[in-house]
């Protein structure tokens, strides 16, 4: 049997129209052999949790450049948990000020990435996170 495919949902919550980073990261993950579901712009946390449920993903990756991360991220986490998806690993990227990082990590984000991130590193981190979860 072949190795189990890692499934990732890449989502952009809120009204943020910056989608380059999300697309770059999604493509890098595909090129790393993952199955990446992209849901497009302007998703509510509830829509994101719903898509994660239907697609049974291992990882949810949020891309936020709007500054609304402190409101959106906890809501996504709450909605995922409410659906019973407690084992999904949450990744976050975009413009996240230094001061907010620790709080978000404490709330359950696995790792946070800013501008200039090497996507190979992201893929490596995802593989590690999924492996240690199994």
């Amino acid at each position, binding site marked *: *049997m072949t190795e*189990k*495919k890692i*499934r990732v949902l890449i989502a952009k919550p809120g009204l943020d129209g910056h989608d380059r980073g999300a697309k770059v990261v*999604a*493509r890098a*993950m*595909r*090129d*790393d*052999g*993952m*199955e*990446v*579901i*992209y*849901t*497009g712009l302007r998703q509510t946390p509830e*829509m994101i949790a*719903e*898509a994660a*449920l*239907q*697609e*049974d993903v291992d990882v949810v990756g949020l891309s936020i450049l709007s500054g609304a991360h402190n409101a959106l991220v906890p809501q996504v986490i709450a909605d995922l948990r409410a*659906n*019973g*998806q407690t084992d999904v690993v949450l990744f976050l990227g975009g413009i996240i000020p230094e001061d907010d990082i620790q709080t978000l990590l404490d709330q359950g984000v696995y790792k946070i990435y800013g501008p200039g991130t090497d996507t190979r590193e992201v893929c490596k981190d995802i593989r590690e996170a999924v492996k240690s979860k199994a």
Partner: protein
Amino acid sequence: MTSASLDALRKGNRLALSRILSQVENRTDAGQAALEELFLETGSAHKIGITGPPGSGKSTLVNALARELRRREPEQKVAIIAVDPSSPFTGGALLGDRVRMLDLQDDKQIFIRSMASRGALGGLAEQTEALSQVFDAAGYGFILIETVGAGQSEVDVVNLAHTTIVVDTPGTGDDIQSIKAGILEIADILVVNKADRPGADQSVTYLRNMVEMGYARSINNGKHHLEDFRENSEHETASAHWVPPILKTVACEFKGIQELTEVILNHAAYLRESGQWHAKDQASIRANIRRQLIASLLKDFNQNVPADLVNSLVEEVQKRGISPNEAVRVLLTYNRNNSLESSE
């Protein structure tokens, strides 16, 4: 897979359903066991295939159809399986069909599942049929299956769907349709989407000519293409033939969707009345059993017959010492003797 999670699926628990879909897709032992049990509860869903060239608007059309089906038949749940290609180089995939289906997110009676083709070439993934069976058992009355963007030879969907919809778009200028005759022949319904663009009526005319040509041919052969499904059917001479209707839609504006839905439901009624529903079901079961039989026969063979024997026979054949047929006879004899021994 515990029986608790199967019960949860039967009760409509969507997380349980989603997890079982993954197990089945990944062909784990638990997934296979679940599928064996759930298969006995299948047989009521109407499976609708949507195929056509890349970018013709399949996902947008599925979005509109799912909404219209839910409006017309509110007591039925709708499942969507959207297949996109895996990269042959990395095995990864970008599954983007959901982007066009955002209208459906707030309806909990609709369940969308994206699937990577994982190397299969016929426009579906190996396990697409299996996933459709899980949805069927979970009580989804309509199952919409979007294939990989197909041009010509990706026609596997026809073996799975009761109703196959082929989507095309208006041709540009004087070039003919992007669509190939081979894929037209699998259509139960033809759709010219993006009918807001110039040339839609010409496309309809073109397709009608193509269909009538193919239809005349199949009548002359005393055979409609649907009969390919029926190796052993009693319904050989279904009296009323289905001539594929051709409809115009503007999927992104929900235009033509009510008419299309009407035709889809009519097709289901036609299949049931003509006995072809039953025949299609039987053909797909036959194909399924055949596939599994071949796989397990091969597995048995590989267990019984040492690779060394196969290799030495290959060499013998390559030296032109014996024919390939002779080699096969030797292998089959060996296999037979060996499996007899082991079963004693």
